[in-house]
């Protein structure tokens, strides 16, 4: 209940900033789509039975969702925690530290699902989505959102300087999406990278998004969904304790 009241604050702010917020989070995946789409389509006629743009589009949906949760729960959280003191202000009200942290992650998760869905709508309009199975994608993006919101909060709870967030973006987020099968099929990667991808939440999410967009949903997808949910269950408690220590002493 407390977490929902915290979320209410975030939604109120979102009501003011959504135009800019959507703009920036959506433009980057669309730029990738345009650049790689035009650039690569000339060389790559077909991947796994689909055109390159069709291959790329679901990845961009997941990427948009990744960015939304990651930036909200890293830079956004850091600013609210250290600069704006929003957390302390909220803690003076009848909420617990846990409510505040859960409310933050809930917001990151919602934005993740929302922004991914915006890109999904765009690529659908571009004719890059083949199946109504794609309607299940927003649900998956919410699960992905929990994972990346929690990971970002966890790291943000550790650091004391906003510049350290660059390490997280460069050393964690960038490899996740460069090697996660967004731009090319992962089976062209060395075996150890493929093995490592089993721990890459974005890889699992992209596999599911792509299958749903193409109407190739099958029992095998549940494995990816399961691993993604498992990662979520493992990482979700991590920021709670750490951030609580930062707030209450």
């Amino acid at each position, binding site marked *: 209940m*407390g977490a929902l*009241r*915290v979320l*209410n*604050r975030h939604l*109120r*702010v979102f009501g*003011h*900033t959504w135009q800019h917020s959507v703009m920036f989070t959506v433009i980057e995946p669309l730029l990738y789509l345009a650049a790689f789409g035009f650039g690569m389509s000339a060389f790559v006629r077909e991947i796994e039975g689909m055109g390159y743009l069709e291959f790329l589009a679901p990845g961009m949906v997941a990427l948009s969702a990744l960015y939304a949760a990651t930036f909200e729960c890293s830079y956004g959280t850091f600013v609210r925690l250290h600069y*704006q*003191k*929003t957390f*302390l*202000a*909220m*803690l*003076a*009200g*009848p*909420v*617990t530290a846990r409510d505040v942290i859960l409310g933050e992650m809930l917001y990151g998760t919602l934005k993740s699902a929302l922004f991914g869905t915006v890109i999904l709508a765009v690529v659908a309009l571009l004719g890059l989505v083949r199946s109504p199975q794609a309607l299940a994608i927003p649900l998956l993006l919410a699960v992905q959102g929990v994972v990346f919101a929690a990971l970002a909060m966890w790291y943000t709870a550790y650091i004391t300087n906003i510049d350290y967030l660059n390490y997280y973006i460069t050393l964690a987020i960038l490899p996740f999406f460069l090697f996660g099968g967004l731009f090319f099929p992962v089976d062209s990667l060395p075996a150890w990278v493929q093995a490592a991808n089993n721990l890459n939440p974005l890889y699992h999410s992209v596999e599911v998004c792509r299958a749903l967009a193409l109407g190739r949903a099958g029992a095998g997808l549940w494995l990816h969904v399961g691993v993604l949910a498992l990662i979520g269950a493992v990482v979700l408690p991590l920021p709670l304790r750490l951030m609580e220590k930062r*707030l*209450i*002493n």
Partner: protein
Amino acid sequence: MNNVVIAENLGKCYGSLRALNGISFAIREGECCGFLGHNGAGKTTTMRMIYGLSTVDEGRLTIFGRPVRLTPPAIKSLIGIVPQEDNLDPDLNVLENLEVYGGLFGLRRREARERARDLLALMGLEDKTHAKVNELSGGLKRRLVIARALINRPRLVVLDEPTTGLDPQARHLVWQKLRALKSEGVTLVLTTHYMEEAAQLCDRLLVMHEGAILAEGSPRQLVERHTLPWAIEVLVLLDAIPAGLADKVAAAGGEALQVVDGLFLYATDGEDMWRRLDGWGVPPHACFLRPSNLEDVFLKLTGKGEED
């Protein structure tokens, strides 16, 4: 009279720093109780424990009759907090700051908006209703923070240095608002290092120093108990003060107090001591005779450390 807050032997350590050294006090319903002390005296730590940002690790803290280790939401919903720094929400305008805060207390939007408008009127902020928070002056921000602390109609308001950094006009305005609040029966707890603020607002004061409470009483009681009625401020450099002056003052029934590089003389009969100054080699034109006040109590209790 009921006690709203009871602290018994409250202690707190941050690493090797002993922030609170087993303090005990009670705050009575309807009073304005002030915690007076230097920065680092333990005032803010005590406030943080009351409003649920610090855990009670040693001793007992009872708020509204309930013992707490970390003040839970149910008790926080009866308290209004004015923190030391203005942590207003810069992403929201003035009205929204109050509405959203009301939302944290479970107020419906319409109810929150009504209360917010009333509070803006009370604090004289109506014409700033839709202003951005960052456009407000320090004094206006402070008033908004106080308005925010009242959105839940609290029975207890905790104010951590409510007027630090404000100009005199803004300070007086805030004081007026706090007096109005007290007249409505709201219990006020405030920390300050402004003697004037303490003297103007508080029924009772607790003087804190290095994590302990050194003295307690009304401003007048403190002055009567802890200093002689007259003070002479000696406004000359310390090396120009004749040797042995303190002994002469003591022999005359007075008291000399050196605080950092200033000298204060205290006397039962101020005029009498004033007349002796010349003979002691202290030029009276460089001195200032006045009745003793809270500042003298504070300097005496905390200026020289534990000595009392």
